[in-house]
């Protein structure tokens, strides 16, 4: 309980600036201050996604405060410490240490795999649980670190999901695979290649660019001569856009397919009408498929629509709070075992963790581009493909369940 006493001392110290009368009140009424960290890039290229992540966690914390949760006989006062990691592993480690020093009880984040993996060492070393709502690289949970969780799917689930969908629907005989030579792009492309080969598809020799390549004409011209039925690219939207545009200009008659890095509405802007017919996948379910209770509360609180991962960070923060409630303690040593065995109905469906800390039966969503907008067409869960409309009809039930909680 040292942790929470220090938390109170910190609040008392802050209160003293405005007037020392209040800290007595806080102590006598038996309040327990619990800090939860939230880390995402709040500046830079994906700042909008980072803010969305933070909003999700903030909503969960505010709802918990309004609910007047009692932990260890005291009224719990949750506080969200939101930090900016600038998408940078070095900055990510600095803010992770900052949160550890601030004695947070748990962390929601980080957004990127590249920042989550190094930061997870710091949290795990300090015995502070972290739950990411968006980092998909398998390595995060593959290193046997204690207290590292994720509520989205992994790239090695996403690759097979999109590859299987491609095989089942486009029925390609020859597939070309290109990647951007990054850990993410190459890793995802490798998973796709493995699955395609297992399905008996002829996969052409791998082509590679870099994460800055905008001229794909030479590569695409070469591929055009091999007449592929489908082209898969592992990379981000800023390189995938030109790739798609140039592919159509050169008259490559193939289905283009991308992973989540290039599964954004930006594709319509970069590639124009060439983007139509694109097949791409995202880890998790689209925000509009989250529970209605979450969607309404989010819109009411922030006056914007959820963008991408906020339902997941909302669930991540709720999981921390729920586990603390279950253990009747905000001490990670006490609530971590509860978190490991939790079975929780969240905004993104039922959540429980396997022994690595990955979400059991995480969903993958397949999208297609129509008139410049991404439309979800199918949800893949536990190897089964469900049409998007059917999935929405199904989720109405667990969503109502979550509303009761």
């Amino acid at each position, binding site marked *: 309980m040292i942790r929470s006493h220090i938390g109170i001392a910190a609040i008392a110290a802050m209160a003293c600036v405005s007037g020392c009368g209040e800290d007595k009140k806080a102590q006598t009424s038996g309040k327990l201050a619990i800090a939860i960290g939230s880390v995402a890039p709040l500046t830079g290229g994906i700042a909008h996604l980072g803010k969305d992540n933070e909003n999700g966690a903030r909503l969960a914390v505010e709802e918990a405060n309004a609910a007047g949760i009692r932990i260890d006989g005291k009224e719990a006062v949750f506080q969200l410490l939101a930090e900016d990691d600038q998408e940078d592993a070095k900055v990510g480690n600095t803010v992770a240490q900052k949160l550890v020093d601030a004695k947070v009880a748990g962390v929601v984040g980080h957004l990127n795999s590249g920042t989550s993996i190094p930061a997870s060492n710091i949290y795990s070393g300090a015995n502070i649980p972290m739950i990411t709502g968006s980092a998909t690289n398998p390595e995060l949970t593959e290193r046997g670190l204690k207290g590292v969780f994720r509520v989205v799917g992994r790239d090695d689930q996403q690759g097979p999901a999109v590859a299987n969908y491609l095989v089942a629907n486009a029925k390609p005989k020859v597939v070309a695979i290109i990647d951007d030579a990054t850990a993410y792009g190459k890793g995802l492309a490798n998973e796709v290649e493995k699955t395609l080969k297992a399905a008996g598809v002829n996969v052409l020799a791998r082509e590679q*660019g870099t994460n800055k390549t905008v001229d794909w004409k*030479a*590569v695409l011209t070469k591929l055009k001569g091999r007449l592929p039925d489908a082209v898969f690219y592992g990379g981000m939207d800023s390189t995938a*856009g030109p790739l798609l545009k140039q592919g159509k200009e050169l008259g490559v008659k193939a289905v283009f397919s991308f992973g989540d890095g290039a599964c954004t509405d930006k594709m319509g802007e970069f590639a124009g009408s060439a983007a139509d017919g694109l097949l791409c996948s995202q880890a998790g379910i689209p925000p509009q498929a989250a529970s209605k209770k979450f969607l309404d509360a989010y819109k009411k609180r922030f006056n914007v629509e959820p963008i991408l991962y906020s339902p997941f960070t909302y669930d991540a923060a709720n999981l921390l709070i729920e586990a603390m409630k279950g253990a009747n303690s905000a001490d990670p040593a006490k609530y971590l075992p509860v978190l490991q065995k939790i079975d929780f109905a969240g905004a993104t469906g039922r959540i429980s963790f396997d022994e690595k800390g990955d979400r059991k039966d995480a969903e993958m969503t397949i999208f297609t581009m129509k008139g410049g907008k991404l439309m979800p067409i199918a949800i893949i869960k536990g190897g089964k493909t469900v049409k998007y409309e059917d999935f929405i009809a199904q989720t109405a039930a667990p969503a109502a369940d979550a509303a009761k909680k």
Partner: protein
Amino acid sequence: MDIFIQQLINGLTLGAVYAVVALGYTMVYGIIQLINFAHGDVVMVGAMVAFSVIVALAPLGLPPLVVVLVATGCAVLSCMLIGYAMERLAYRPLRGAPRLAPLITAIGVSIILQHLAMMIWSRNPLAFPQILKTQSYDIGGATITNVQIAILSISLAIMAGLVALVYRTRLGTAMRATAQNPQVAGLMGIDANRVIAFTFVIGAALAAVAGVMVASYYGIAHYAMGSQLGLKAFCAAVLGGIGNIPGAMLGGVLLGLVEALGAGYIGDLTGNVFGSNYQDVFAFIVLIGVLVLRPSGLLGERVGDRA
């Protein structure tokens, strides 16, 4: 065969862009022996200004060609101003300094331009509006788009115009005289500072045109787009013989062709040991090979170091 023709078209388009950017490097180097590392970022500013103008004019319903021309005009004017300011504020005060000082300053100017652009246009890659409809034409099984035809013909016109300017006008004569010996040119009544400033302004105008061409070709503009393009164009200038105007054109086109053909055939030639990811490596191997055999570049003259 159609694949080969297609790769030639790809390489020529890329090479034409390299050539136009390389001209900016080579002109400045020819006259004051400065490698202006900020030149690539002037290309980026050109693309960004054109982007903003097109976005601003789009709702007015003007004919697309007019919008593109106005945007290019604005980009050229802004880049000329930047080119002049760069020379006046950053390089002229260092005119008599050791050669390393302006070189480091050039890198500094490059960083400043990139960060200013990042503050104005954000870190996000911007989708360059495709207001001119892309049309593809078929030649011998290969496709060429109207954008590629425009890039090739504009580049040719620019090169022809520049050669005429340098070898046929009084200003060109003054530029060549200043390049040979600024002091003696000054004694002959040539205002060397004005001529140098003019060289920067012309180079920046070419960069602006190149920026608009690149952004509309790839449909994307980004605050860091200039650094890689600038580096390639600089290599093209060195390949052709830095300081030599026809050399920059030859180097640019050659580099573009080597890249396209390298990416297209290197995998097959080496049994997929080297893939298309070695496209840049291949281009630089050619550069090193040429420099080993001809240290002053393909068309460069063997001159003693005057500095």
